[in-house]
């Protein structure tokens, strides 16, 4: 199992989620994807997407004002 990092800082919604979808499709099952983002709406959209797809979220935290990181496992 390995960990991949997707940096989407500076991108507005829905692009962080669009890229997260494209990236998770390209990694092996069991791998983790760290998504760094600073689009406020993604704090709702990305965890919701992970839940809808049954991907476990192993970390979700703030990195500072208006910046977040979430780790989604491909299951």
């Amino acid at each position, binding site marked *: 199992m390995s960990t991949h990092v997707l940096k989407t800082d500076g991108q507005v919604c829905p692009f962080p989620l669009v890229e997260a979808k494209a990236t998770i499709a390209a990694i092996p099952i069991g791998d983790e994807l760290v998504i760094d983002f600073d689009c406020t709406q993604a704090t709702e959209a990305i*965890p919701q*997407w992970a839940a809808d797809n049954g991907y476990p979220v192993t970390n979700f935290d703030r990195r500072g004002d208006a910046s977040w990181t979430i780790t989604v496992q491909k299951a």
Partner: protein
Amino acid sequence: MLLTGLVLGAALGFVLQRGRFCVTGAFRDVFVARKTTWLTAFVLVIAVQAVGVAALEGLGVISPASDPLPLGAVVVGSLIFGYSIVLAAGCATGTVYRSGEGLVGSWIALIFYGASAGAMKYGVFADLTTWARSQTVSLTTIHETLGISSWFLVAGLLAATLYAVHRHLSVPRRPVATLPPRRTGVAHVLLEKRWHPFATALVISVIAIAAWPLSTATGREAGLGITTPAADIATYVVTADTELIDWAVFLLVGIVLGSFIAAKASGEFRIRVPDATTVLRSIAGGIGMGVGAALAGGCTIGAAMVATAQFSWEGWLAFGFMLLGTGLAAKVYIINPSRAAAGDRAPALTNA
């Protein structure tokens, strides 16, 4: 009395920011994610507001006029508006409350939106707008056309919406990850907790209903609106014509203030400067929004959320064509972006 606009706007800005209520996202989700949760929340606002509007009309508190339908202007304007909100990454309210979050791209979109709406309403293109909106067909409201009381439509819409809400709520849901809480009690609920889309929609409905009597008391007989006040502010800045400052102007300023307060208090405010592509899209989106909303007779709020609650043909046609315009733009920019456009947005993937 104008200050009620500021207070109501601040409440709305707070709720929009904390509830992540984005109409562009609601419309876009239908095409991109094939999800209708947020669209259902949007229609819920219309349905609940329709009850309030019909009640206020019945009580004689308000008596809004419905003008004949400018068919061509509404269709063309709504398509342009729907397309543009994807470029601007937010509709009228979305752009306004994101400005309060510190997104410079939204500041740019908002400035161009106000300026182009001003040009279309009072400036060099005012004649064009007047001409386009004078090409009407003799339809006003749906209940007038059908010759029935508006209460039948209110009841029908409410029943259909509640059924859709019930269907969404009865889908078994997996737990959604949340941020580690830093606060407790009321502060946690107001500033941290994820608000359910339908709860957010209910609060917005109450604000939308309250807007009617508060605005009417100042002589502006209308509900929530964004385009005209944005045009008014832009025009006031260059003409100093104080006639333009009305209740809705205070409402708009209030939304920015309210979303700033919400974002600042919840640690979600930061000045975020966009890249060149986003700047260009914000400019194009802002101009398109102003042109589209001026022709259509309102934005996603004034036309698609407020005029619909009055069951005017104009509102429902605008809603439909804005949704269609958003779908077109979503296809071009999100679902099938060209390779060239995708190039500078390629995921920066690294192994950690």
